[in-house]
């Protein structure tokens, strides 16, 4: 009975690490995080949050790319790209920036620029060798994420895209909390069609609702494969439970689009090239462009609503 009390009940009764009751509710007794929550250390200090808000004042839109599941292909496309996947930073390789380093100036850390209008920051740029493992517990990862937000001089930015690791843990809580004073436009959630992915993505959707993060919509990636030789279409990851479409209907979220599997995508990422530029005629490119447009429309529309 004591074991059950410690465990399964606490899942339901946890008041939430960001709530006023954090660390103080009855269900908090015996929880290993109680000390952290009660001291307010589970969430950031309001002065720090305000400092981050001031730092990011020149950012017009902020979009979080989430999944819940790993390996589903979270893609990013705009002006400032922040990679907070500390253990598995993929962005430097995908942008052709391996080996680049971060420089410092009086105004802070300079992002690494792919193009004049596309700056990137990732822990990948801070490693001595690309195979170095970062074996850090939560608090140290949180500290680096805070530095990325506080010390990077992004300048004027139309879109800040934040790529996240799989899951619903320290990195996700931290980014939402540190940006609580800066407006996050919303989250784009990525999945693949099979139930084993959807299962994790439903949790991610629940995470967004729990922390009041608006959901821009869901992208179903690796959705079908058209053979370039015979043109036959196959479902490599069959949507045995209706895929993202059914999940979105059930959970009342937008399906932004479906992107088919194209081996050129993986190849372009490995080579650090832009897939959209390398394969403009691919059905995947058309899907990406439609999805990107819908995300832009969402952000612009909500910008107007905010002004009004």
């Amino acid at each position, binding site marked *: *009975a004591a*074991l*059950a009390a*410690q*465990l*399964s009940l606490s*899942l*339901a009764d946890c008041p939430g*690490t960001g709530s006023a009751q954090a660390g103080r509710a009855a269900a908090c007794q015996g*929880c*290993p*995080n109680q000390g*952290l929550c009660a001291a307010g250390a*589970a969430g950031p200090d309001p002065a720090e949050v305000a400092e981050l808000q001031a730092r990011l004042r020149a950012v017009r839109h902020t979009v979080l790319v989430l*999944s*819940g*599941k*790993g*390996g*589903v292909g979270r893609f990013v496309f705009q002006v400032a790209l922040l990679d907070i996947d*500390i*253990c*598995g930073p993929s962005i430097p390789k995908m942008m052709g920036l391996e080996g680049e380093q971060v420089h410092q100036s009086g105004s802070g850390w300079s992002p690494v620029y792919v193009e004049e209008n596309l700056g990137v920051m990732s822990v990948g740029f801070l490693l001595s060798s690309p195979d170095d*493992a*970062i*074996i*850090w*517990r*939560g*608090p140290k*990862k949180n500290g680096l994420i805070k530095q990325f937000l506080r010390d990077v001089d992004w300048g004027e930015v139309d879109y800040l895209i934040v790529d996240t*690791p*799989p*899951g*619903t*843990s*320290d990195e*996700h*809580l931290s980014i939402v909390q540190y940006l609580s004073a800066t407006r996050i436009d919303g989250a784009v959630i990525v999945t*693949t069609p099979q*139930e*084993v*992915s959807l*299962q*994790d993505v*439903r*949790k*991610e*959707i*629940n*995470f967004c609702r*729990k*922390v009041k993060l608006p959901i821009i919509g869901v992208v179903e990636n690796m959705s079908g494969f058209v053979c370039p030789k015979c043109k036959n279409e196959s479902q490599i990851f069959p949507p045995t439970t209706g895929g993202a479409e059914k999940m979105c209907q059930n959970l009342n979220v937008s399906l932004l689009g479906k992107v088919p599997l194209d081996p050129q995508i*993986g*190849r372009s*990422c*490995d080579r650090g090239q832009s897939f959209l530029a390398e394969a403009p005629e691919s059905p995947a490119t058309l899907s990406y462009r439609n999805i990107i447009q819908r995300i832009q429309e969402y952000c612009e529309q909500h910008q107007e609503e905010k002004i009004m």
Partner: protein
Amino acid sequence: TLAERTNLAGVRHILLVLSGKGGVGKSTISTELALALRNAGKTVGILDVDLCGPSIPRMLRVQDSAVHQCDSGWVPVFVGQDKAIALMSIGFLLERPDDAVVWRGPKKNALIKQFVTDVAWGNLDFLIVDTPPGTSDEHISTVEALRPYQLLGAVLVTTPQ
């Protein structure tokens, strides 16, 4: 010794399935490995330490099962055609399958320690430990908790790109 008197005393070999990268098929391989070893006449258990995205219960069609307790701790859920593979996962402890486990490191670490020491595994030839992507809290805590025992080694899973 401590090792002799614990719930892992009857486990002959412990192996970890790791990757770093997500979505490459760790849980699939853990499941297939367990089923194949069982088919070969071995006694097998699976410990699923992916707390945010536990996939094993669904893969073995036991996502609706519940966990019970005995004097030595938690009783694993027995799965497979002959109900002979022992499984422990946070998936069994959720009120609803879509509940997100939104925990920071210390709470995850505490549960992993309990999963390692408080599950009554009994006598097993193999205990397969399925992990989440990354190299963080879950991985550090799992390896630390398993160090006193027969840790055979790790199988690493990747995809070609």
